[in-house]
Every structure is written in structure tokens, then in C-alpha cells.
């Protein structure tokens, strides 16, 4: 008998075995962990984590829960999800807990909102005057550092959370059932809301730089908002008004550029007024500056405005 026959038989058997184990009866999971959930279900899971956090303000336990999703940067993922929700036109009520949690993760302590106010985007702008950062939610947080808010309880809860959620081992034999798709929001749209002045000191303009970069977007007005320690703050509402309209937007919706970053595209020869939250700094008569490149050709520049809480 030739060895080739045995080799062919072995290869045939191997092929049959692999075909059966990979295609006919592959390993299936019955005890999955949240980190392998599909992206939309991860978003839903994150939303529920944020909603739970809005109720409990237990940052330690919330961190542990976010870790289950396997995100390398949970705060960034929350900000990105908030952006997706804004783009999808979801309600401010659905987005607010997520931005709040992202902010608290970044600052490292729980913020307990005294009042949450929701501001509708006022769509009176001309089509070309579109802010790059658009959101429609703000909060009026009161900062309560965990150091003064029973840190022992926080730690104990976080610890119990991690010990209560062991990593499961995959097992075989499983029958999958179809899922019911979820609606993204259940809140009725609210046409008008009254903005409430947030607590804390108002922001002050501490620096205003002309940005002349030919490669940059013409008329780009950048905002950076920081606290008194120069730590960037997300979720701060900025209002830009001009003769024909008004726009509201918020910091922190481009986390890759900084949590306190927002921007707005100005048009040439239009005067804008800027206001940072109610009672905050107001800068009148801002217009896109003219710049010249190395050949002496004029182009529209931008601004970099830095605001800080005193």
C-alpha cells in the first residue's frame, strides 16, 4: 500500500473534521461577555450604564461596568456615542446622561446635576452658517468630589461590582433566539425650553488669537473652555448670534480635539456676537479676519478664543 493513500485519507478526514467543526457545528457561545456585543448593542448597553449612573452617581461601579465593554477609552467612546446620537437626531434627554458620564469619567468625580436643562437648536441660521459642533443638551452640575461623598462606600461598591461579574467561559450547545430591535428614544420632542443659568463662576475670555493658516478651514472660530486649573470642560453651551440668526452648540463633541473644544464656521463680512452660557462672557462684534499668504494673497482666517473660569 502506498503512503500516498494514507496521506490522502488523512487529508480527507482532516477536511471533513474541519468542515464539521467550523461550518456544520461550530463552537457557539451561551455565556458571552458584553465586550463581544455588536456595536449597536454596545451603544445600548452604554446608554443603560449612563442612565443607571444618572440615578446612582456611583462612579466606581459605573467604571467597572464600562470596563466590561472592553473599550480602550471609555470616556472617548461615550463622547463618540453622544456625537452619533446627536447626528441621528436623538432627544437631548437620551444624550444628556452619556455626556454627563463622559465628563465625570474625565474629571474623576461624580457631578450631581441640580437641574438639567435642554435647549433646542435654533435653526434660524443660513445654510452656509453651520457650526461644526452641534449638540442640544446642557446641564447645570454641582460638583461633589467623592472625597467628601463617602469614598468608603464608593470603593466597596466598586469592589463588589467587580467580584460579582466573573468572566464566563464559552460553552457549546446553544440555540439562538431572534432579538427585538430597539427603538432609540421614547421621548416626545420638546420644541422650546428655557435655559437656566448654571451654577459656578462665569467664563472669561483670557485669550483671543488670530489664526492664519492657509490650509485651515476659512473662517473657523475655535473655542477652548477650561476651568481655573486649565482643565478643559465639556458640555458648556456657547451661543453665537448674528443679524440673521443664532446658533447654540457645546464643547466636548470633538473629543479628539479636546474635551473643552468647540468650533464654528464664520462667513466673511458678517459680525458675530459670542456668549458662553447664561451670564457668562459675551464678546460682541467678532468677524472673520483677513490674512495674507506668503504671496500676498488675501484669504479668510479664523480665531482661537480661550475662555476660563476664574
Amino acid at each position, binding site marked *: *500500500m502506498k503512503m500516498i*493513500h*494514507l496521506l490522502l*485519507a*488523512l*487529508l*480527507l*478526514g*482532516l*477536511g*471533513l*473534521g*474541519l*468542515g*464539521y*467543526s*467550523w461550518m456544520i457545528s*461550530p*463552537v*457557539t*457561545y*451561551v*455565556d*458571552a*461577555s*458584553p465586550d*463581544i*456585543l*455588536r*456595536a449597536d*448593542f454596545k451603544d*445600548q*448597553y452604554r446608554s*443603560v*450604564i449612563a*442612565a*443607571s449612573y*444618572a*440615578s*446612582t452617581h456611583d462612579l466606581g461601579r459605573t467604571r467597572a*461596568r464600562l470596563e*466590561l465593554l472592553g473599550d480602550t477609552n471609555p470616556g472617548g467612546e461615550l463622547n463618540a456615542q453622544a456625537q452619533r446620537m446627536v447626528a441621528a437626531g436623538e432627544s437631548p434627554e437620551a444624550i444628556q446622561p452619556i455626556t454627563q458620564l463622559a465628563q465625570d469619567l474625565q474629571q474623576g468625580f461624580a457631578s450631581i446635576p441640580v437641574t438639567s436643562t435642554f435647549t433646542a437648536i435654533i435653526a434660524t441660521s443660513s445654510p452656509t452658517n453651520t457650526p461644526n459642533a452641534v449638540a442640544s443638551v446642557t446641564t447645570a452640575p454641582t460638583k461633589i468630589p467623592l472625597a467628601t461623598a463617602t469614598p468608603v462606600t464608593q470603593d466597596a461598591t466598586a469592589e463588589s*461590582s467587580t467580584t*460579582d*461579574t*466573573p468572566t*464566563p467561559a464559552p460553552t*457549546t450547545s*446553544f440555540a*439562538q*433566539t*431572534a*432579538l*427585538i430591535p*430597539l*427603538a432609540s428614544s*421614547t421621548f416626545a420632542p420638546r420644541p422650546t425650553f428655557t435655559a437656566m443659568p448654571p451654577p459656578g463662576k462665569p467664563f472669561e475670555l483670557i485669550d483671543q488669537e488670530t489664526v492664519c493658516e492657509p490650509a485651515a478651514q476659512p473662517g473657523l472660530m475655535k473655542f477652548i473652555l477650561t476651568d481655573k486649573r486649565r482643565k478643559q470642560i465639556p458640555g458648556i453651551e456657547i451661543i453665537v448670534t448674528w443679524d440673521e440668526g443664532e446658533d447654540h452648540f457645546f464643547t466636548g463633541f470633538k473629543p479628539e480635539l479636546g474635551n473643552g473644544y468647540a468650533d464654528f464656521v464664520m462667513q466673511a463680512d458678517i459680525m458675530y456676537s459670542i456668549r458662553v452660557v447664561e451670564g457668562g462672557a459675551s464678546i460682541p462684534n467678532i468677524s472673520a479676519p483677513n490674512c495674507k499668504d506668503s504671496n500676498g494673497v488675501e484669504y479668510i482666517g479664523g480665531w482661537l478664543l480661550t475662555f476660563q473660569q476664574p
Partner: protein
Amino acid sequence: MSISNWIRIILTAIAGIALGLVYGWVIDPVEYVDVTPNILHADFRADYVMMVAEAHQSEKDLETSAKRLAMLGSESPAQIVTSTLDYAKKNNFTQNEIDLLQELLTAMQTYQPQEAAEP
């Protein structure tokens, strides 16, 4: 070809099948990504329902809570909370957590989907 040779070939093929199965099931099994939540481990399901209960405590929004629970499968929201409540009692959840789940269960037992409520 003699019978003994056929037996050798069949045995070799069986060995190949066994190797293939070991490779496909143990060494390099199909890896799952993008799974649906109904296959979450019981611990994670319970924690998810716990989060819904915590959120429900302040939101009191039956529709939202029911939709959140629907992510876990096709069972009714009340059934999902009931099984989680049983799990919580067997696994020494705190009394506060059990109370929250009980509150959610009571709410879900009275919940009627909007479509069903309409004539």
C-alpha cells in the same frame, strides 16, 4: 487492495477527522464578535437588568425600561425581571438591589405596550 489496507485507510481518515475536530473546536474555534445580548452570561444579564432597575428608580418611565429590557431577548419584560429577581435572591444580592428589582418587576407587571393599549 486488501481489506487490511482499506482498514488502514479508514483508520487514517478517522484520525484526520479527529484532528480536524480538535483543531476546529479547541485549537482554533470559530470566534464570535458582534453577538446579540440574549446570549450574555447570567451575571451580565442580571447586572444589565439591575442597571435598568436603577435607572427606572429615578426615571419612572415604563416604556423606556421595557425597551431596555427587550434587548435581552423575546421574553416579556416582566419575565426577564422575574428570572433576574430569582437569580438575585440565589446569589446574595443586597436587599437594596432586590428591592429595586422588585420595584421594576411591579412596574413591568403593570406595563402595557402602547400598541396593545390602542383599540
